[in-house]
């Protein structure tokens, strides 16, 4: 039997195409890319203020993370062999284009900074690489928010005002968390503070986003995405609390660091899944647009 005609959709079919990106590649990339950029920043400033251990760990983490990131990005392409085509043009209307160029500069800088830190050779070149990685790292950790927001996917597009702050906070939380996990407490105070600021920003941005979205926050709060976002929130809050106490014991520091890293990852996976869900159900596309038209028509009609 042909289903009844509906006034608000075509047989319940999606209006949009669901993102073709795979979570295991792209959501992972969001996490590793954020971790890398923020780690480079932490390394640079910690080095400037005389910390010896934290910068080396953060630089190696950044280089490793960005290596993994780029591998995942290439893997997710429909035609991976043509990945260099990303560098044919530079388009400011395409966050993916801007990001490709950012990564082309950041990758080598982060790699050089890590290699020179580990070998201890060429300290001035190492400092230059560290500074370059930090400067570009700011962009690497945040451009991805523009990338996913600059789509028709309702959950991502509608959150575009807060998304960069959510991603920046998540990145700082992860970078600080890694420092707490891998460096002994008396040399990871900078990481702890960075993580606290990051986790606080992450939680605040998320809360503001949900409040502003109102009914449109449903994809973030229901289903699989809802579970991921909630778990991420619990982990970020726990990690934040642990970071505050982390000076006291290596164990607390390590657990806090792990919680922060996991929380940051789950935030990215949660956002990704929310986007998927919002593209799949036509109501998330149709209803807000229909409401907008109705309101515009009401505004034009004089009230009698």
């Amino acid at each position: 039997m042909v289903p009844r005609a509906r006034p608000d959709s075509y047989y319940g079919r999606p209006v949009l195409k669901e993102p073709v990106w795979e979570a295991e590649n792209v959501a992972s990339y969001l996490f590793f890319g954020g971790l890398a950029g923020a780690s480079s920043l932490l390394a640079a400033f910690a080095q400037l203020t005389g910390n010896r251990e934290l910068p080396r760990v953060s630089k190696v983490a950044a280089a490793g993370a960005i290596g993994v990131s780029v591998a995942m990005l290439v893997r997710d392409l429909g035609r991976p062999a043509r990945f260099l085509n990303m560098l044919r043009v530079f388009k400011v209307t395409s966050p993916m284009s801007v990001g490709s160029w950012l990564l082309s500069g950041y990758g080598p800088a982060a790699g050089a900074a890590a290699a020179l830190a580990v070998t201890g050779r060429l300290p001035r070149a190492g400092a230059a690489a560290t500074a370059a990685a930090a400067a570009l790292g700011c962009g690497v950790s945040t451009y991805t928010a523009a990338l996913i927001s600059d789509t028709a996917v309702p959950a991502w597009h509608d959150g575009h005002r807060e998304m960069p702050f959510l991603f920046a906070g998540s990145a700082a939380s992860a970078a600080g968390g890694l420092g707490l996990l891998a460096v002994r407490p008396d040399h990871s105070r900078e990481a702890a503070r960075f993580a606290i600021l990051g986790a606080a920003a992450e939680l605040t941005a998320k809360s503001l986003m949900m409040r502003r979205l109102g009914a449109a926050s449903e994809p973030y709060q229901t289903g699989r995405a809802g579970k991921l976002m909630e778990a991420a929130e619990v982990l970020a809050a726990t990690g934040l609390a642990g970071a505050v106490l982390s000076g006291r014991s290596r164990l607390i520091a390590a657990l806090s660091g792990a919680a922060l890293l996991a929380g940051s990852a789950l935030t990215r996976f949660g956002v990704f899944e929310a986007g998927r869900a919002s593209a799949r159900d036509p109501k998330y596309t149709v209803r807000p647009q229909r409401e907008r038209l109705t309101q515009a028509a009401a505004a034009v009609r004089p009230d009698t």
Partner: protein
Amino acid sequence: MDPAERAGYDDHPPRLGFFTDTSVCIGCKACEVACKEWNAVPEDGLLLTGMSYDNTEQLSATTWRHVAFIEQIGPRGDGAPGPDGPAGGPPGAADGWPGAADGTRWLMASDVCKHCSESACLDVCPTGALMRSEFGTVVVQDDICNGCGNCISACPFGVIARAETDGGAHKCTLCYDRLGDGLTPACAKACPTESIQFGPVDELRERARSRVGELQESGVSKARLYLDNPDDGIGGGGAFFLLLDEPEVYGLPPDPVVTTRDLPRMWRHTAMAAAGLAVAAFAACLHGARERS
């Protein structure tokens, strides 16, 4: 501004596009077949969807024209009996549309890429594969596309898609290869009722406005144009439509807006967040030296 001019063409032919008048579509699907034949688009599986005569289901990498079928049964269009029947019934009853006495009508529409004036897929493409042709159409250069999938998430109509077979993004080209030789696109050529009309967009818009005026005068109050207005959320479509009901009935978004319009704000907020990240890192390390000394 004309899209071809905005893209940098100094001397270009008039903008070409489609006016699809769904009020005369007979659902024959000659357009689907002609498109596939001319463009050598592969078949996309033999499936029976149960969606009336629509077994194609949607536009995709392997379907560039898609005919939709909506059966609106009874005065309310959903099979439920109205309180009074057609004459004194609620909206949707007959609607002046020649058809069954009880108000039943079948809607048939050939969907296609809209070749937006402000095209999200084109804007977000990082390789430059998606480009604006001299005719004002939006075309994917298959030898450049690396299948990143960004265009797919950006399209507000869910048109462009990535093919599993070759990993690239594909969509209607408005028969770019035929336009160059002064030929009509395959679907418009094959359409037996001239539901799909091809020509300069300005001319098509004029024709469409007089056609919709005609329909409304004869009592078809729900007839309306969709994406003909250059002031709408995509700057108007090179391919636009005459619909007999709300766009969402056909699976189309009621008020699509190209995502690029919000991009300036996105970049501003990204820059602020990036700066904030740096400031946070600086603040976190400020006490460092003092703590250790």
